[in-house]
C-alpha cells in the first residue's frame, strides 16, 4: 500500500474531485484534443496566449484520477509561463514521473515543480505515465501551433 499512498496523495484525490480550470474556454487561441488509445480516455485543452505567454488554460474530458489531477495541476502551473518555460517545465515533470529525477536531491527542480511534485508517485507505476502526461502533450501541441484555432475553425461542443 505504500506505493499506492504515494500515488494517490491527498492533493491528487482532491484535484480529481474538484479539478481547477475545468470546462471550455471562450476566446481561446488554441484547442487541442488528446486521446489515450490504450484506455479510450480523451481530453480537450483550451489555451489562451498573449504573444509568447500562456494567459490561461482550461481542460475537459474523461480520464482517471491521475490524468485529471495532472491536467488540473498543469493548468495552474503554466499560467503566466512563456512557451519555453512551459516546455522546460514539461521536461522536468516528465523526468519526475518517469523516475529520472530525484526531487529531494535537486532543489531547483523541486522549486520549479511546486505542487506538481504530488505526481511523483507515478514513477513507480510505469503504465500510468501516459495518464500523467496526457495533458502536457496536449499543451505542447498547443504551444507548437498544432490543434485548431477556434477563431478560424468551429469547435464542437
Amino acid at each position, binding site marked *: 500500500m505504500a506505493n499506492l499512498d504515494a500515488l494517490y496523495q491527498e492533493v491528487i*484525490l482532491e484535484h480529481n474531485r474538484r479539478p481547477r480550470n475545468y470546462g471550455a474556454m471562450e476566446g481561446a487561441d488554441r484547442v487541442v484534443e488528446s486521446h489515450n488509445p490504450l484506455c479510450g480516455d480523451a481530453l480537450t485543452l483550451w489555451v489562451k496566449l498573449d504573444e509568447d505567454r500562456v494567459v490561461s488554460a482550461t481542460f475537459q474530458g474523461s480520464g482517471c484520477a491521475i490524468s485529471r489531477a495532472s491536467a488540473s495541476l498543469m493548468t495552474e502551473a503554466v499560467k503566466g509561463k512563456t512557451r519555453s518555460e512551459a516546455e522546460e517545465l514539461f521536461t522536468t515533470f516528465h523526468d519526475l514521473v518517469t523516475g529520472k529525477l530525484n526531487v529531494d536531491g535537486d532543489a531547483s527542480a523541486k522549486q520549479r515543480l511546486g505542487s506538481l511534485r504530488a505526481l511523483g508517485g507515478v514513477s513507480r507505476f510505469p503504465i500510468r505515465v501516459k495518464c500523467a502526461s496526457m495533458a502536457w502533450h496536449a499543451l505542447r501541441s498547443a504551444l507548437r501551433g498544432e490543434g485548431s484555432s477556434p477563431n478560424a475553425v468551429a469547435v464542437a461542443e
Partner: protein
Amino acid sequence: MTYTEERARKGGPNTERHQSLAPRSDFPLLAANPALHYLDSAATAQKPSVVLDAMREFYERDYANPHRGAYALSVRATDRYHDSREQVARFLGVADSTRLIFTRGTTESLNLVATAWGMEHVGHGDEIVVTALEHHANFVPWQQLARQRGATLRICSLTSDGRLDLDSLASLVGQRTRVVAFNHVSNALGTINPVAEITALVRRRAARNAIVVIDGAQAAPHLRLRLDGDDLGDVDFYAFSGHKMLGPMGSGGLVGRRSLLETMRPYQMGGDMIEIVGDEETTWNVLPHKFEAGTPNVADAVGLAAACGYLESLGMDAVRAHELALLELAVDRLGAIEGVHLFGPSDLALRSGVVSFTLDGVHPHDIATILDGEGVCVRAGHHCAQPLMRRLEVPATARASFYVYSDSKDVEALVEGLQKTRALFAAD
C-alpha cells in the same frame, strides 16, 4: 428484476464458498504466487504444467521440421502436428479435422476470412453485418473490407442489458448481405449470443451465398462446443484463440465449411501450401495445408492439444457450472457495493464468467491500480470494443473474469479491494 431485488428475494448476502475446479498447483505461475488473484482470464489464461510439459517434450524428443524431411524424426514431428489437429478438432466437436486450420489465433483467423473470402466475394453495393458487441478483431477487418470493396457496413444494435437486438439484426439482414459476423460470447460483457437462432435468421433472410462468421475467442475456453452439431453446424467459419483456453500464445485456429475452404484462394503463399509450382502457375495443396503457408507452429499446436485434453478431463460442463457459480457470487457481492454498476445481461444463464463494472466517482484505471496493490488483477479500459463503450456511454469499464483455477477467495479479494477503493476515493 434488478440485482438488488433478486438478492432480496434470495435473502441475505451470498456467502457461498467455491473451491477452484482445477487445483492451483497445476498452474506453476499461480502456485508460485499464492496471494495473486488473477481475474483477467478473458484476456488470457494461465497455463497448466501439462501444456508446458507437452511443448518441452516435443522440443526435446520429436523436434524437426514437419512435412519436409525424409527421416524418422521429421515423420515424428509431422505425426505430432497431425495428432494435435485431431485432438483439437475433437475438442471442438469437429469430425473432419482437415477443416481446422491452425492460425496464430482469432485475429488471424478472422483476417483470413475477411481477406481470402471477402476480397473475392464482397463487391460494390454488398452489405456486411457486424454488431456493436464486437471485439475490434471482428469489427475492423470487416469495416476495412467494406471500405475497400465499396460495400456497406451495418451494425446490429444492442438491448439495454447488452444482448444483441435480434429485431435490429433482422432488419439489417437481407438479399444484399454477404457476411454476418458476430461473437459467440462477448469479451466485454460476457453475453452468450444465440448463434443457432441468428444463423437460422440469416439463412431465412439473406441470399444463399451469404456467410456466417463466428468469433469464438470467448466461447471455446468456457463452453462445450459441437461445431458439427445442431447448434453450430450451420455456421460457415468459427475462429478461436489457444491462449485463452489454457494453450500457448500464438496458437489458435479457424474451422471452416469445407466447400468454402476448397474454393477460396489461399491467404498467404509460400512453402507447404503448394502442390505444384510452375513458372507461371501454382496449384494449391489440400486442406488444411493450403491455408498454412510456411513452417507450421507445431510446438504450440502440441501445447494447444494438451490444453484441450486438460479441459476435457475437467469436463466442459463442469467448467461452465463452476464459472456460473462464481459469476453469481460476484454479481451478488459486487451488486451490493454502493456505487457499483454492473453491465451485461441480468439473466446470468446468458453470460459467461465475466463481470464488467464501474464504480461511481472512480475511473476504472484507478480501480485496477488499487486492486493491483491488493494482488487482484483486473482489466480496465475499453476491452478492444470501442463501438460498445460508445453505446454504453462510458469511456471504460473494469472487468473481472473467471476460469477453472478461480475460486470464491478471488471474489472476496475483489470485493475487499473495491471497498478499499471506495474508501480511498470517498469525498470528505
